[in-house]
């Protein structure tokens, strides 16, 4: 073992000896301690930006592997780790929490959560990450529980059930910690599970409030569901929220309505599916919402990770939210009022041809018995992978893809190689038809200018990508894709500067941390977590 690692370890000790609990103040000011990574996207605004600048455009080509941690799991590795004072915490899918030495990758402990036999997820038994407060880690589980685990000992502190896994409820997202609360939502929308966002006392697990993403009878919005379709209407919550301390609002994207590819049984706009909901974190009350795709019949979940930043819009600085959506449209939204400021296609889009003055899309294509070709694909232009924003370049970095698919109403279109065949009354899709056509389906990382939402540059990949992006103060953007390459791009030009053949799909958001003042870049790929640093 070389001297450098020894120095790193000793420095880790020094940090560890000064160990302090992760207070809400630290979470609020997480950007000020870039050696750590305290939230899913580092900071509450989800910018996934690291102030560490040791790795630059000039030296990134020298990056080398520091360590690999192999998960004992064959599930997709979608988690972004947390790093707290030299300790790295991540999730071994579906629901094992692992504490690692951030300098060497060696394991301190593993906490195993045994999911109930009825636990299931529509699209992989995955988990996207943890949250921390004090010395307690929080994780949502595939069997729809929220658990609290001691960050030092790895012992369970409490476990709370959000919903019944037998009713298709699950949790795959990372929790949001605000003040002394842990807030998390439920997946399972493709199985009809009515979305939940709930807050819990971080110390005890006691439930504090619960927001249902589909309004019940008598509540505003319930009239957007015909009959009793609201009962099993989906609108799941399965990706990380943004939190705005100034307004006390947190923002979650919601998933598609169910049944997804056949909306004949759920006439209406189906609120609050495919929306962003802004909730008061103290009460769980809905303050505003914006629906990206009313009455969705294409599967355009709006479960992307929102990025908060202030943007100059028509000569006025607005507290804004950037949202590249699965439906192929990129948005600029006022995060205080929910006002739609600007929106436009960022990939080939054929299902709508414009917005009205309130930002409602004008849909022009609908599923037919013969099958309708939609752009973008049912998997969307982008899906759940977390984007990034650099305050230095002022650019918004999104990994996504160009693609299309045919959707038909149930029973009329020849059954194809689609997924979700066990689900009923969901229409049929053909997802494979264009996968081998390079002009139709390819992945990209693109940079967008926030006020115009114009594309500034593009890095193109042969295959599509489910990898997130990371922006750093070294003016780099890290990303990857299904091809198994982890890459570094020039944040200003998009030029490829470095690649690492990690040999497995990159299906997670990259992150950065430091031990001994040495910047590391980490990303999950295949079934392993890779870390890189300068020699």
């Amino acid at each position: 073992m070389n001297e450098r690692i020894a120095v790193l370890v000793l420095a880790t000790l020094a940090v560890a000896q000064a160990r302090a609990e992760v207070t809400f103040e630290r979470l609020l000011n997480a950007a000020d301690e870039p050696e750590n990574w305290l939230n899913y996207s580092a900071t509450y605004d989800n910018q996934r930006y690291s102030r560490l600048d040791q790795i630059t455009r000039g030296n990134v080509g020298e990056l080398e592997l520091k360590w690999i941690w192999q998960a004992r799991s064959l599930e997709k590795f979608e988690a972004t780790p947390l790093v707290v004072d030299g300790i790295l915490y991540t999730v071994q899918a579906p629901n094992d929490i692992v504490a690692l030495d951030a300098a060497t990758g060696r394991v301190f402990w593993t906490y195993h959560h045994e999911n109930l036999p009825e636990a299931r997820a529509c699209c992989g038994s995955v988990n996207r990450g943890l949250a921390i407060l004090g010395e307690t880690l929080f994780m949502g589980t595939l069997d729809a529980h929220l658990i609290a685990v001691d960050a030092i000992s790895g012992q369970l502190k409490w476990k709370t059930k959000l919903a019944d896994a037998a009713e298709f409820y699950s949790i795959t997202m990372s929790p949001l910690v605000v003040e002394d609360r842990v807030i998390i939502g439920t997946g399972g929308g493709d199985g009809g599970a009515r979305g939940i966002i709930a807050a819990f006392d971080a110390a005890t697990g006691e439930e504090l409030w619960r927001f249902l993403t589909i309004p019940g009878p008598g509540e505003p919005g319930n009239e957007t569901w015909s009959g009793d379709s609201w009962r099993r209407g989906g609108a799941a919550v399965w990706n990380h929220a943004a939190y705005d301390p100034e307004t006390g609002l947190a923002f979650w994207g919601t998933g598609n309505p169910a049944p997804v590819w056949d909306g004949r049984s759920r006439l209406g706009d189906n609120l609050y599916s495919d929306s962003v909901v802004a909730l008061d974190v103290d009460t769980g009350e809905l303050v505003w919402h914006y629906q990206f795709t009313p009455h969705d019949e294409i599967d355009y979940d709006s479960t992307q990770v929102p990025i908060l930043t202030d943007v100059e819009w028509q000569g006025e600085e607005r507290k804004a939210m950037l949202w590249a959506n699965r439906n192929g449209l990129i948005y600029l939204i006022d995060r205080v009022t929910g006002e739609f400021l600007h929106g436009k296609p960022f990939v080939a889009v054929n299902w709508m041809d414009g917005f009205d003055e309130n930002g409602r899309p004008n849909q022009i294509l609908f599923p037919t018995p013969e099958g309708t070709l939609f752009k973008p694909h049912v998997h969307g232009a982008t899906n759940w992978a977390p984007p990034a924003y650099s305050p230095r370049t002022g650019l918004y970095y999104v990994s996504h893809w160009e693609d299309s698919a045919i959707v038909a109403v149930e029973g009329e279109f020849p059954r194809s190689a689609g997924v979700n065949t066990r689900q009923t009354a969901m229409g049929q899709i053909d997802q494979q038809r264009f996968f081998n056509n390079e002009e139709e389906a390819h992945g990209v990382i693109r940079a967008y200018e926030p006020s115009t939402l114009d594309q500034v540059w593009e890095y193109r990949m042969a295959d599509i990508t489910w990898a997130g992006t990371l922006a750093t103060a070294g003016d780099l953007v890290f990303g990857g894709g299904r091809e198994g390459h982890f890459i570094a791009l020039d944040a200003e030009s998009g030029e490829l500067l470095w690649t690492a053949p990690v040999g497995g799909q990159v299906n997670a958001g990259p992150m950065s941390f430091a031990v001994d003042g040495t910047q590391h870049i980490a990303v999950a790929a295949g079934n392993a977590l890779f870390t890189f640093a300068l020699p």
Partner: protein
Amino acid sequence: MRTTVGAIIITAAGMQGVAGPAAAQHATANDIADGERAYGESCVVCHGPDGDLIASIDLGRGLFRRPLTDEEITGIIINGIPDTPMPPTPGMTAEQAERIVAYIRSLADDSSDPAAGGDAERGRSLFFGKGECTECHAVAGTGARHGPDLSIIGRERRAVELEVSLLDPAAIVQPTGRTYRVVLPDGETVTGRLLNHDTFTVQLIDTDDRLRSFVKTEVAGHGFAETPMPSYRDTLSAGEIADLVSYLVSLQGQVDE
């Protein structure tokens, strides 16, 4: 695990004159130790270190699919059970088999239950008070974390094992409870519960409840150390030990939804 269980039984037998029923009544501690070794060679692969890996059979607690005499068990060990996975053991003498029986019977013996007569509530008071157990151990989140967590110790250990740990802590050291010491280049010594180690590094939780990681070649010294667990032989009465054991046995896991 096997060694540990053996040590417990030997220690317990030595201290308390433990002897099992029937043939085991005539077994010496050496017989039981021999039986333990033979069990480790011939039985443990299928039955497991605690004798509970086969459905409906728990050798450690004297549970068989039907009541068996010592002679019947001896016969089964030598001849196996036809048409079942239980194989014969050619070459094993009756004497060897009887010693395995003595060992199994000693595991299941509860004639000297250390918790007998103990009061779990008084034991709880001792745990959080006079015994100062929370200086190192936690139960359901209360207490220090550098000693093994005891929240479900009642599920994991028998009363006799817990008593031995209280009276003679070094006699029972679980793999998850080993103590490791690292001497830093400046002479500072760091001691803690070993969490993980390999050729190059070691990870532990130190006595200040901090997760620590070291590169072995970069420290002045490192190695296993004696357990810091004190013996309560002279500080607690026999009644208090029984109370404490009763409390520990009662810890079956309290964290749930």
